[in-house]
């Protein structure tokens, strides 16, 4: 039942599609995603800020574990304060194990009404899961038990998928995925267990590629997000666009980086026709909007 991407959806040029409409002449949807993860100290760390002297990977990797742990202890609370102040309820991309290891953090997100998007059980490429289907169900069940509502969204760890991941996800009750960063509109892809919607997540306005892979300076975050926003806002006059902003507390929650994130929201607040929606809201809008255009 495994399918390659081309079997799930044909190539489509954005200019060839009917236009979707946002309510009230909206031009752009901003979709903020906060990623919360569990980095198991018994395994290699998902990312490293400091490779060991001589570059050999060592276990346990305490320095990089604590670097990430800082995000859960300190950085997350900077995000929390920011979104409380802005009255925003972002999407939380969450390893299900966070509800076990960091209940304090998960409860704060639940209490604040953030959307819980499933993000695997813990952080590691999905290719290495011995029982991928079982892990997906376990993740969805755990989050459902924790929030009282089964998640509708899924983001693979590092966006990873195997060829049969979409089938497992659809079967487990997932409605949308963020793993396919191949468009600026939602799209529908085929699985043997029913369709999935893709939402335009981002590997561009995303602090992992920018800060950890490409090593940009902190202030470039503001510039890049504003440049992306300006372009999408302009084009949104003709066809609504979606802009995703993906952040991690151990990166953007650092004291020297947080102001560059805050500045992005400050900039966007000056424009009319900008809505801040979570993944589930975008999904619901899309399912209705595509009926109207049909």
């Amino acid at each position, binding site marked *: 039942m495994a399918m390659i*991407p081309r079997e799930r959806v044909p190539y489509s040029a954005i200019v060839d599609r009917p236009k979707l409409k946002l309510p009230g002449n909206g031009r752009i949807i901003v979709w903020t995603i906060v990623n919360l993860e569990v980095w198991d100290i018994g395994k290699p760390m998902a990312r490293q800020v400091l490779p060991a002297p001589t570059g050999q990977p060592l276990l346990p990797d305490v320095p990089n574990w604590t670097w990430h742990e800082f995000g859960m202890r300190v950085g997350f609370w900077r995000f929390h304060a920011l979104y409380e102040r802005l009255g925003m309820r972002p999407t939380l991309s969450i390893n299900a194990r966070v509800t076990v290891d960091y209940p304090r953090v998960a409860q704060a997100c639940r209490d604040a009404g953030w959307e819980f998007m499933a993000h695997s059980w813990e952080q590691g490429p999905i290719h290495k899961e011995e029982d991928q289907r079982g892990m997906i169900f376990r993740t969805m069940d755990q989050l459902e038990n924790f929030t009282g509502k089964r998640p509708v969204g899924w983001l*693979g760890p*590092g966006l990873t998928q195997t060829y049969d991941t979409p089938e497992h996800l659809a079967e487990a009750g997932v409605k949308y995925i963020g793993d396919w960063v*191949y468009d*600026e509109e939602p799209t529908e892809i085929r699985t043997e267990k029913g369709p999935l919607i893709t939402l335009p997540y981002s590997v561009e306005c995303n602090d992992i590629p920018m800060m950890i*892979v490409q090593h940009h300076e902190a202030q470039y975050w503001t510039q890049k997000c504003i440049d992306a926003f*300006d*372009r999408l806002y302009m084009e949104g006059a003709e066809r609504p666009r979606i802009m995703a902003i993906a952040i991690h507390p151990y990166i953007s929650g650092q004291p020297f980086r947080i102001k560059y994130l805050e500045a992005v929201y400050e900039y966007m607040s000056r424009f009319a026709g900008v809505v801040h929606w979570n993944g589930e809201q975008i999904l619901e809008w899309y399912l209705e909007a595509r009926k109207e255009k049909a």
Partner: protein
Amino acid sequence: MKPLDRISYSPIPQRPPLKLPNGARMVVWTIVNVEEWDIDQTMPRTVLTPPAGGSPMPDVPNWAWHEYGNRVGFWRMLKVLDSLDIKAVLAINGTAVRAYEPISRAALERGWEFMGHGYTQKNMQKVENEREDIAKTTEAIRAFSGTNPRGWLGPGLTESWETPDLLVEAGYEYVCDWVLDDQPVLLKTRTRPIVNVPYTQECNDVAMMLIQHHSAIEYYRRAMDQFEQIYADAAGSARVMALVVHPYIMGAPHRLKYYRRALEEIRARKDVLFWTGEQILDWYLEARKEKA
């Protein structure tokens, strides 16, 4: 043949001057690279490494990141090139001609030049049969556009020792894998010579954004610095400047304006020509005769 068997060293100020028509000083050509990345292979480039490293297959996130360029990014670039009335050169993988037919059609309708860019985005040293790969690329372009491509760019500029020979035998008249000069030059092959047109690894978004990890504005700054210097250098003898883009990189919303700004400013200069690769080729072949 090794490179120095094909071309001997030549210092640029010691050559007879090249002249462009109507007193133009230099030529700019812009190349848009459209590729198809095979999901069953390792992705040619990545933006996001998997958690804890390694290279698990399939690599859906990086495949999707590239696919974005052809679904969305290309169409943004097209508007810029249309608004400035610039005919670009489409360097396209043979398989991509059909896989992304709306792109091929847009290029054909505008009279862009199609340049062969390998049948797939695979190193030329790793394709099983190079001659066949070139022939299939030529055929894919001819079948769609009605014309044989005259120019060739290897995937990632890769060549074997034999590539220039095979290209000439397949009917190609120019190649741009050799970034060794600011002017076209002739490369010997075992039959007729082939022209090499100056391409660039410097004003190239793959090198700048994916390898060197510059901020997007550096594309604009570097393009203008490159332009001003070549313009100055071209006082006595014409030079060629290339601007290279890929839809999945410079077609991202936050990057596009820096490509647009560079093109706009250069377009406003009166004695600078925007040509395709074949226009450069035809001019060079004529200009050589005259100076000889």
